């Protein structure tokens, strides 16, 4: 690991040094390929973000892939109904590592205005590990761009070795998540306890 002071001193002299970790993360962070995948009205904002006016291409994330095999990022844009939830998890399982999830909008975070309904999942974080959550109903394209920038910062900060290394470099951690089954009234199981950490009520 090179000393930060020495690194900047060398840069002033026109010598650029870096670490493999920085180079690896820099490359990954600037070519995040999202999956073409929308569930509700948030997807309209997602499309707007990728078009000329907001131009997501400036952040290296404009290549929306129609196949989960080629995508790095799943933007869960919209309401996840209980009928759709197993399919969302299955698509996530089909994506190769490293993979990330952005929960876009109130519905994907918590169920939003449909939270008390009988047919809506109360947030996609019950089954998938969400990296970045964007509040809003729907969030503006700028908010999605901000979320992708936040994700890039998160990728840049990842360590490649040590106990904190990300999931795709740790063979002990599974990269697939159990797909829930349809039950008589709800999904079974209703949540994946390994992923979901509920809010604790303090009164």
């Amino acid at each position, binding site marked *: 690991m090179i000393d930060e002071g020495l690194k900047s001193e060398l840069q002033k002299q026109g010598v650029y040094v870096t670490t493999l970790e920085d180079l690896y993360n820099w490359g990954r962070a600037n070519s995040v390929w999202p999956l073409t995948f929308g569930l509700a009205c948030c997807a309209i904002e997602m499309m707007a973000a990728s078009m000329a006016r907001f131009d997501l291409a400036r952040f290296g994330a404009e290549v929306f892939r129609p196949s989960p095999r080629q995508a790095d990022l799943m933007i869960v844009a919209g309401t996840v109904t209980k*009928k759709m939830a197993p399919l969302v998890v299955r698509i996530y399982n089909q994506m190769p590592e490293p993979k990330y999830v952005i929960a876009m909008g109130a519905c994907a975070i918590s169920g939003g205005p449909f939270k*008390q309904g009988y047919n809506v999942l*109360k947030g996609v974080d019950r089954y998938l590990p969400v990296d970045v959550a964007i509040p809003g109903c729907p969030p503006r394209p700028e908010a999605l761009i901000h979320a992708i920038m936040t994700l890039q910062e998160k990728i840049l900060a990842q360590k490649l070795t040590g106990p904190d290394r990300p999931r795709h470099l740790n063979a002990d951690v599974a990269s697939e998540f159990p797909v829930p089954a349809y039950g*008589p*009234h*709800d999904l079974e199981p*209703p949540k994946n306890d390994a992923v979901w950490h*509920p809010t604790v009520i303090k009164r």
Partner: protein
Amino acid sequence: METLEQIKARLEAALPSAKIEVLANECAAGERSLLVDAASGFTVAKFLRDDAQLKLDYCSNVTGVDWPDKELTEKIKVKQVVDGVEKEVEEVKKNIRPGYLEVVYHLYSMGLKHGPVVLRLRTENRADKTHLPSLTPLWRGAEFQEREVYDLYGVIFYGHPDLRRILMWDEFVGFPMRRDYIAPDDFEYEPTPHDEVLVEAKKHYPAEPKAEVKP
């Protein structure tokens, strides 16, 4: 377009076995409808579609309504002898009107540019006799909407080409839009609960610690 009374008169002339009623509507729009008995629902609908003056060739939507059992109170004046004097006393009589499921069709004519004619069909009850004729053979556009009514209310349409659930998954049990459907209790923390959600939320809050009783 003809009034509903005229349509009813012509229907009764053409189909003597049909029992047809014009239902009043108390709400602001005041749109009245034709209530047809389930047995002759299909023939009445076919008449409405094929009749030269009506030509209702377009079914714009199909809706379900759940009417649970309702207690009706009625005041009846009864003569009673009180203290040797005959008096008129009001008595409250309670009747239970059995519930039923209702399917509403809105029919328009594309060719003659008129409508809607609202057609209602009712099931016998809400439990085991929930059969109604399907109007999908007459208006193909009713297919998915009748599936939705079956999915959410449990009306069984005979003559439907493909009666399956459409919105809920196939393994789902029950009909969630019925008034008496109880959703599974999966309540979660709400930052600002109110109304029904507040009632639900209170059941899940930890019990408040009891105040210490001072001697």
